[in-house]
C-alpha cells in the first residue's frame, strides 16, 4: 500500500523528485531507501492516526514548500535572530546552524580535547554507516527526514571527557519563499563522558512565507555518561516545527531534557523518545509550553523501559492563552523484563484563554509486575484564592495573573541547572504575558 500516493498534497511530487535524486547520489542509500518506503507506507499523518488524533496538520500541508534551501540567509536578518537567541551571561561554546547547515564557526573559545563537531554532510563522506538503522515505527516525519536529509550536526564526546561549558546551538530558519527543511543530527556521548547542550530554535520569515522544519535528532548516551539537553523553541509565526528526538540510553546513563515552547510557531510537534536500552538508567523529562494566538503545540513523549532498575521522571506544564491548543501525550511503556522500574509522570495545565484547549493523556502500559509507576494530569484555571490574596495587597489583576503564571512555570524553570538560562526563560515567559493576554 502506498498511502502517500493517495494523499493529495502539493508536496508529493517534490518529495519523490528529491528522493530519486538523493537515492542515486547520496551516501547511506540503503537506509534512505528503507526510510522512504516506510514513509510511503505511512504517508503524512492525519487525525485517523492515534498519535495525531488531536493534532490536525492538514491545513499546514495545503501550502506548497520547496525542498531546496536558499544558499545563504540575509545577513541583516540573521544578526537580529541571533540577538534574540542569545542568552545573556551564559558562559558557553556557541555555534549557529542556518536552515540546518553549520558554517563550521565556534564562538566562546576553542573546543577542549575530546569533543568533535562535524557537519553531517562531512561525516557521511567517511567510510562506514553514520546512522544506525531504525524502522521509524509510526514516526511519519522521522521516516521522511531519514529519506531526504542532507545535513545536520554530528557531535561526539570521547570516553571519560567532561565538557564543563555548555554548547549552545542556535538553529536559525529563514527563507523568502516557502520551504521545508530536514535537518538530521547525531550526538554521541561516549562512556563516562558528560555534555550539556542548549538548543535555541528561532526563525525569521517575511510576509506570508512559511517554513516547515522537520528535525530529527538521535542521541546515544553510553554507559555512565550524562547529557543535559535544553530546548528553547521560540520560532516565529509561519513556522511549522516538527522536532523528533530519539535518545538511546545505555547502562547507568543519565539523560535530562528540558523543553520550552513559547508563543510564535503555528505548529510545534515534539516527539521525544527515551529508549532505556540497558539497566540502571536515569531519565528526567521536563517541559513547559506557553502557547498563544492560534498556536497548536503538541508534546508526545515516550519513556520506553526495556530493562530493569531504571528510573524515569517526567513533569510537563502548560499555560494556554488566547485561542491556542495544547496536546500532551505521555506514554510510559514498561516491558516484561523491566522489573524494579520507577516511572513517574505529571502533566499540569493552566487554561487561561477562553477559547484555549488542552488534551492531556497519560498512557501507561506496564507488563512487569514489580514496578512503581504513577501519573497525574490536571487542567485548571487561576486559583481564585491566590488571585485575591495578591490583589488584597494592592497588586492589580493583570500583574497578579502574570505573577501566578510565572509561579506555575517555576516548578519547571527552577530545574534548569544554568542560572543564566533560567533567567532568560523567565524573561521570555514574562515578555509573553502582557496585560491583555489574561482574559
Amino acid at each position, binding site marked *: 500500500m502506498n498511502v502517500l500516493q493517495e494523499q493529495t498534497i502539493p508536496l508529493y511530487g517534490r518529495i519523490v523528485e528529491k528522493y530519486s535524486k538523493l537515492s542515486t547520489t547520496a551516501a547511506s542509500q540503503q537506509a534512505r531507501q528503507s526510510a522512504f518506503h516506510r514513509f510511503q507506507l505511512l504517508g503524512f499523518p492525519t487525525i485517523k492516526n492515534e498519535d495525531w488524533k488531536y493534532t490536525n496538520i492538514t491545513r499546514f500541508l495545503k501550502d506548497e514548500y520547496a525542498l531546496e534551501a536558499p544558499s545563504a540567509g540575509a545577513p541583516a536578518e540573521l544578526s537580529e535572530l541571533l540577538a534574540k537567541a542569545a542568552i545573556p551571561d551564559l558562559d558557553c561554546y556557541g555555534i549557529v546552524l542556518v536552515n540546518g547547515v553549520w558554517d563550521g564557526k565556534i564562538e566562546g573559545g576553542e573546543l577542549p580535547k575530546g569533543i568533535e563537531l562535524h557537519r553531517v554532510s562531512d561525516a557521511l563522506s567517511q567510510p562506514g554507516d553514520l546512522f544506525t538503522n531504525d524502522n521509524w515505527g509510526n514516526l511519519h516525519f522521522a521516516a521522511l527526514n531519514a529519506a531526504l536529509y542532507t545535513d545536520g550536526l554530528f557531535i561526539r564526546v570521547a570516553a571519560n571527557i567532561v565538557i564543563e561549558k555548555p554548547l549552545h546551538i542556535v538553529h536559525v530558519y529563514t527563507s523568502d519563499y516557502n520551504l521545508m527543511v530536514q535537518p538530521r543530527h547525531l550526538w554521541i556521548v561516549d562512556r563516562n563522558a558528560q555534555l550539556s547542550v542548549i538548543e535555541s530554535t528561532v526563525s525569521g520569515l517575511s510576509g506570508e512565507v512559511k517554513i516547515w522544519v522537520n528535525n530529527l535528532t538521535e542521541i546515544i548516551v553510553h554507559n555512565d555518561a550524562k547529557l543535559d539537553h535544553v530546548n528553547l523553541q521560540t520560532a516565529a509565526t509561519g513556522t511549522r516545527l516538527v522536532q523528533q528526538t530519539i535518545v538511546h540510553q545505555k547502562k547507568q546513563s543519565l539523560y535530562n531534557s528540558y523543553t520550552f515552547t513559547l508563543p510564535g510557531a503555528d505548529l510545534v510537534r515534539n516527539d521525544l523518545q527515551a529508549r532505556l536500552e540497558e539497566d540502571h538508567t536515569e531519565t528526567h523529562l521536563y517541559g513547559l509550553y506557553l502557547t498563544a494566538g492560534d498556536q497548536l503545540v503538541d508534546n508526545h513523549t515516550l519513556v520506553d523501559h526495556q530493562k530493569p532498575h531504571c528510573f524515569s521522571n517526567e513533569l510537563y506544564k502548560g499555560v494556554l492563552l488566547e485561542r491556542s491548543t495544547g496536546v500532551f501525550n505521555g506514554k510510559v511503556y514498561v516491558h516484561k523484563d523491566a522489573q524494579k522500574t520507577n516511572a513517574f509522570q505529571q502533566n499540569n495545565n493552566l487554561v487561561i484563554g477562553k477559547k484555549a484547549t488542552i488534551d492531556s493523556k497519560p498512557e501507561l502500559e506496564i507488563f512487569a509486575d514489580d514496578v512503581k509507576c504513577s501519573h497525574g494530569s490536571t487542567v485548571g484555571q487561576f*486559583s*481564585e*484564592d*491566590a488571585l*485575591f*490574596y*495578591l*490583589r*488584597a*495587597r*494592592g*497588586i*492589580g*489583576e493583570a*500583574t*497578579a495573573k502574570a*505573577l*501566578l503564571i*510565572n*509561579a*506555575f*512555570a*517555576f*516548578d519547571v524553570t527552577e530545574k534548569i541547572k544554568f542560572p543564566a538560562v533560567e533567567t532568560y526563560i523567565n524573561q521570555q515567559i514574562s515578555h509573553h504575558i502582557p496585560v491583555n493576554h489574561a482574559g
Partner: protein
Amino acid sequence: MLIIKNLHAEVEDKKILKGIDLTVNAGEIHAIMGPNGSGKSSLASVLAGRESYQVTEGEVLFEGKNLLEMEPETRAREGLFLAFQYPIEIPGVSNINFLKTAIGEIRTYKGLPPMDAKEFLRLTREKQKLVEFDAQLVNRSLNEGFSGGEKKRNEIFQLAMLQPSLSILDETDSGLDIDALRIVAQGVNKLRSDKNAFIIITHYQRLLEYIIPDFVHVLYNGRIVKSGTKELALELEEKGYDWLKEESREQEATTI
C-alpha cells in the same frame, strides 16, 4: 475613617451579614469577638472585596469614599489591609518579589516615584526586625512550607511594609504561642499611631492583654449584638458566649 451602615451580605444565597453598623476613627483600635461562624471573617472579606460575597444592602465609606465600588487592589492601594485568618501558600512567588510588586503598584497608584532598591532593602530590614520575621523566610516562596505561626507573622510583616491606614487582623492570634503573640502585639503597638486604625478580630481575650482596644464588639449571627470597652472582653472570657446567645434570641423574639 471607616463607616459601615446597615451592611447586609450573602454568599451562595446564604445570608451571612444581617445589618452591621460600625464606625472606626483614626487612632482607634476596635476588637471584634464572637463565637465561630458568627460572620467575623465574612465581614473582613466583604471589606477587602472578596468577590464571592454579595452585598445586598447598606454602605461602607472609607476615608469618605464608597469602598464597595472599589476593586480589591484599589482598596489596598487606598490604605486597607487584611491580615488573613488563613494565609495561603503561593509556591513560585517569592515573598520579596511579591512585596516589591505590591509596593510598586501602590506607589504608582498614589503618583509616587518608584522606591529605589536600596530604600526597599532598608525598609525590609527595618520591618523584619520590628516583627522579628526570619530573614530566611523573606526570600522564600510566599508562605510555602511556613508553619502556622510563621504565616501569621508574615501577615504582620507585610502590614508593616505596606503601612496601611486601616488594618484588619483576622484571628492573627490563633495558632500562635505566647512568645509569637507578644511579638505580633508589640509590632501592632509600634505601628499604631493617631493616623491609623486597627480592627482586631479575635476569639480570645488573650491578645487584648497586649493590644488594648478602645472598643470591643460582639458579633453574633451576622449582627453586632453588644459593644463596650475592654471590660466587655474580660466579661466574655469569664462567662463565655452562651448568655449572649440567650440574650440575642430573646431580642430577636421581641422584635418579631
